[in-house]
């Protein structure tokens, strides 16, 4: 009847494939790839931004921390407990048989070689994410002399290992290195 109507009535090819099918598939594929590429920045913008990632590692100066004393630092928005263990605390930790532990680990495995007195942990209870007490001056340290989480009663010992309560694991150890004997870099 008109040019338009004549245009769309191509006879089917012998095997039933029309030339137009190729155009449809090619257009659809091109649009799908384009859409996926366009969507990615909209998803990625919710990932940590450059200023957040810039704070991904921190340095902590250990020189002022006396034996028996602990400080808190902040790393990736989480508290870090840095503790200078006394000889007595180290002995207490070493005296515990591994078989008595829920998450077996020795103090040597938790600390760095040659720096057995420096107990460094992420101060987040492995149960449900509360911050345990014990790193601050005068805070209760629990029945095992380490850390105590008041939310659900998890007790950690002087190597920050879980001894009693609902927490499944020892306090986690962040990745860190000694840059000098009194300076660590976390992250």
């Amino acid at each position, binding site marked *: 009847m*008109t*040019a*338009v109507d004549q245009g769309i009535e191509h006879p089917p090819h012998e095997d039933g494939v029309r030339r137009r099918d190729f155009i449809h598939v090619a257009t659809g594929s091109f649009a799908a790839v384009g859409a996926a590429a366009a969507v990615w*920045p*909209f998803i*990625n*913008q*919710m*990932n940590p*931004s*450059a*200023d*957040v990632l810039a704070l991904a590692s921190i340095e902590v100066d250990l020189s002022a921390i006396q034996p028996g004393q602990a400080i808190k630092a902040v790393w990736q928005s989480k508290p870090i407990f840095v503790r200078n263990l006394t000889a007595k605390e180290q002995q207490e930790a070493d005296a515990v048989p591994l078989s008595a532990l829920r998450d077996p680990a020795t103090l040597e495995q938790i600390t760095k070689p040659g720096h057995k007195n420096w107990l460094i942990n992420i101060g987040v209870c492995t149960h449900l994410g509360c911050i345990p007490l014990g790193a601050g001056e005068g805070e209760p340290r629990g029945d095992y002399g380490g850390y105590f989480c008041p939310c659900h009663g998890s007790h950690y010992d002087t190597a920050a290992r879980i001894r009693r309560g609902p927490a499944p694991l020892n306090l986690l150890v962040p990745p860190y290195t000694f840059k000098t004997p009194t300076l660590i870099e976390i992250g």
Partner: protein
Amino acid sequence: MSFPWAKQYEPQHPVMQWIDSRMPLPRLVYNAVGPGYPVPRNINYWYNFGVLAGVAMMVQIITGIVLAMHYSANASAVPGAVDGASIAFMSVEHIMRNVNSGWLMRYMHANGASFFFIVVYIHIFRGLYYGSYKAPREVVWMLGVVIFLLMMATGFMGYVLPWGQMSFWGAQVITSLFSAIPLVGESIRTWLVGGFAPDNATITRFFSLHYLLPFVIVGVVILKIWSLHIPGSTNPTGVDVKGPQDTLPFHPYFTAKDFFGICIYLIVFSVFVFFIPNSLGHPDNYIPANPLSTPAHIVPEWYFWPFYAILRAFTVNFLWIPAKLWGVIAMFSSILLLFFLPWLDNSRVKSTSYRPMYRIWFWVLVVDVLILGWLGGAPAEEPYVRISQLAAAYYFAHFLILLPALSFFEKPLPLPNSIAESVLAKHDQSAATPAMAE
């Protein structure tokens, strides 16, 4: 809401039948933008701009939601900032420098606003040329004017949010428009900004409304499409659809055509976003807001310039009304008179293609608005002020004098008997031309 020969939605699959009898959303889509919506077969590329406006709106909403995740509406100074930069200003810089693809999101949003207005201005002039405001489409047109007003409010408040110099002084000047109202003007202005000058209360309420109004626009857009789909689109001949030979189904004919238009639009948009992202903005807005110092030459965003020129065209008191109030009245009237356009133009011929006299004046109006736009961005000095006065006078004369008068004097050209006839006549012509060339 369609022509009797529209294809009927008949779901074959049992699942689709099950859905159709309970929540007929697929039927709505089929009848709105699918094969069930017959469209005049002769609509040209100017008719793409309605769909493009919808695309521009969605780009603004999506990028805007993203930016709101990172932006902070707070006019307080960042502690220690030497230049007094606010938290809002620095949060925009944070988006530009730190957020993954943040620069892309912001440049898409800022240029997207300009492109939304470009598309809408073309769409408005398309409506003016083809008489899209005439019966039975008056409500479609008036809802469009409502959307335009909402867009202007949204665009203005969005421009304030980065809290640069142009943001701050734009907020100061635009809210001061309301102080021209006799007696209560100053109280209204204080109420609008929530203080004696734009400050934290202003930026927080503007952010809240800037997020709200786009969704109000979406609501009005839905009403507009609803009212449009009752008579259907106009067409370049302005002759009503008379039968099935005059229409083609929306899908696949106009979905394909709109998709092609969207591709072209996105290419042009990308050129701006990726290569000249600041060309449509004002560099002074990268200076943090300073309430104690106005930039020498302050201008609104370019899409307000024609109306800004009308505002500034009034320089003397007249009829006991101060110049300031005249300017404000004229500026608002220049948009509000569009609501009355369907009754100002009494010509029964819709398409300007068949109105030999009005066709000239239509293009004069286009040039006049472009001149007003140029003047709105120019400094407030001679000769710009005098030209603004002439251009503003023509703007009002066009709608209030010329258009009503032309419907009496003008002798329209003969209209084609039907859309199909005009299409076939064109086809025969174009078929004949190459034959002659050979």
